[in-house]
């Protein structure tokens, strides 16, 4: 039975994407045809302007610019986020102090406040500060949804680091640098890398905040797709193609998780988070911004 549920869940998750690929390759795909009656490659010869993937690949579509912007902003957000969140995570993981619960709640708050409410406020603030419509503004704005997630997952990673080990090393004459170089970094690196990867994804997926703070001037793949989607009817090939491009960052992350970070992310390792259910919640929750 478990195997059945597993296959069902996997099929339900993955099968929809097959239709997306077909939709992106269609030229004319009317009801009730199961497959397009005319494919993109059959029509592209006669088209006076680029159609389907030809358009997506052309500079006019700005698809590549969008992907590059997405990657640059998400990369910068990840770096800034790590720089801010890691020290806080260390403190939360290893120290006890008065008001710790309050601090933890504060750092979790952006998860519980609807993104739209944050976006509407940020849009105005960004105008007043003068960063509206700029990469800087979007970068700063993205730190909000990324931060709570990073703090909690990094705290979970830090909890997993046994400080007795560091003490033992120091007793045996290791310098602070040695501890960092030979103990902390190798032991923490996979967990931190996984955290950073998810932070990157969170930033790449933020829509409403980017639209409102970026004022249409900062085009990421997510905002490009959002602008093309509108209720009702079928999905046109170009929108389908943009949806596929928007799937890319997640697919890359999946491959990295499966191949490179396998040891850190299988269930046994994840279960380490179980000591702190909240951390487990955030670890995955922030993938649904």
């Amino acid at each position, binding site marked *: 039975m478990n195997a059945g549920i597993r296959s069902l869940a996997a099929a339900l998750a993955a099968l929809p994407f097959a239709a997306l690929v077909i939709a992106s390759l*269609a*030229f*004319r795909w*009317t*009801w009730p045809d199961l497959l397009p009656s*005319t494919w993109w490659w059959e*029509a592209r010869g006669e*088209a*006076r*302007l*680029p*159609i389907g993937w030809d*358009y997506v690949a*052309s*500079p*006019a*579509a*700005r698809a590549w610019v969008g992907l590059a912007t997405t990657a640059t902003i998400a990369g910068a957000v990840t770096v800034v986020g790590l720089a801010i969140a890691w020290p806080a995570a260390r403190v939360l993981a290893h120290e006890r102090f008065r008001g710790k619960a309050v601090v933890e709640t504060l750092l979790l708050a952006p998860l519980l406040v609807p993104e739209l409410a944050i976006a509407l406020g940020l849009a105005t603030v960004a*105008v*007043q500060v*003068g960063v*509206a*419509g700029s990469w800087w503004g979007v970068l700063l704005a993205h730190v909000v949804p990324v931060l709570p997630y990073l703090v909690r997952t990094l705290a979970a990673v830090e909890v997993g680091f046994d400080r007795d080990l560091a003490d033992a090393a120091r007793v045996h004459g290791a310098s602070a640098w040695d501890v960092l170089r030979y103990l902390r970094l190798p032991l923490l690196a996979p967990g931190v890398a996984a955290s950073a990867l998810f932070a990157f994804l969170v930033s790449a997926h933020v829509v409403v905040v980017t*639209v409102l703070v970026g*004022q*249409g*001037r900062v*085009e990421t793949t997510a905002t490009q797709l*959002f*602008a*093309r989607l*509108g*209720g*009702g*009817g*079928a999905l*046109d*090939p*170009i929108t389908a193609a943009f949806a596929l491009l928007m799937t890319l960052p997640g697919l890359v992350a999946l491959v990295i998780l499966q191949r490179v970070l396998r040891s850190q992310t299988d269930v046994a390792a994840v279960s380490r988070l179980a000591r702190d259910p909240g951390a487990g919640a955030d670890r995955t929750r922030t993938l649904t911004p």
Partner: protein
Amino acid sequence: MPPGRHTCFRRTPTNGLGTPLRWGALLLAACASAALALAPPPIRADLDHDPAVIEFRDDFLAGDLAWDAVLERARTEGEVRWYHWGGSEDLNTWIESVVVPELAALGVRVQSVRVPDTRDAVDVILADAAVGRGLGRGAVDLVWINGDNFRALDANDLLFGPFADLVPNAVYFNLDESDPAAAVNLRDLGTPTLLRSIPWFAGQYVCYVDGVRLEPEDAPRTFVELEALARERPGRLTYVRPPNYIGTAFVQGAIVEGSGEGVTPFLRDVATLEPAEVARLLRPAFERLRRIEPFLLGGGGDGARGSPVYPPTAPAWERLLAGGEVDMACEDNIFHASLGAERGRLPGSVGTVIFPEGAMRVNKSFLAIPATASNPAAALVLANSLSSLESHLSKLELIGFPLALDTDRLTASQRSEVERRSPDLRGVRYEDLAANAVPDMHASWVGVIDRVWERWIALASDDEFVDVVARALVER
């Protein structure tokens, strides 16, 4: 209040003058022509302007600059940031492949900023002004605009000035204030453009059907026929929900037909009318829209409202037609069916129809330069370039955007060139389209109609219709 034309304009909706419409128009015309003779209109003093750019502006608007000097300055500025609705991949491609190289040859780099909604561009201009950025300081140099959005810039004194008759390609436009035929170039949904914007797109509300499911001959020509068709074949029609302009235009068509008085009562500011009068004019259309609702897509059939589906945008409506869910959809472009079929968005069997008969609204949208432009010379050069006959022809031929310039200003050979390069109208004739065209309502009606639709249709309010209208008039 600053002196000059704006003051004149704001005073126009005076009432109690017997025939306010005529008086208003006269007053307006007088104001406008008086203002034209004056020096460049003042620019908002509370903003921080670049003195050099102010000097250029004043010289240019006073007619003291040769076009070569503008070209020279544009080269120095080097770039122009053009904000436009970015939802059409055809337009995006045309800009990148035609406009960008053309301006590059003039030494100007075009940065086309694609906004999901023109309001976003207005937002940027308002935001720049809110932090004191004036001429030579702002982010937007040129914007494709009309209606409410133009009105917002006008109301905030954020337009560069009357440039339209000063660019060389102005020869293609009838900008003579004394000629009634020029109104379509000088009024933007009732707001006088005062030459602060130049026409760029000519819209005409037009509908299309999929001939496989509904023969163009069987398509409704009036809202009376539409109601009959909806009852006969329930669940196969719908329209875009207001306040999307395509949805509002559908409702406006119903109103013009339903009132029985044509478009004339709607050309004046709605604020000059009593709520009871407004309700009288709107009631037939809204009662019809309520009656047909059960027979629309998703409706419950006779007597049951069901859960009617109103698509949010024109492209969504188009997809409903392409997917076989509805039999008729409408757009703001007479060549839409032709282009849709060519690009695969619509089936090859699609045909244009005349609907609503005698109430197909026409209007133009414009290119305007905001009073915060950093590169006004480059903006002028781009606006001029986009107003050339060749530019309009290539836009017509490649992406089916109708000419916004006036064909009676063209030579016979130029006119035959236009004909040759026009896309197919797919089943209708120019003469029929022209014969059924009506001017757009005064912009003040839009907000009222949208709010009445929201209450009376979307929320199915039980209140008296007059009260719904009265509330909408107050909220506006």
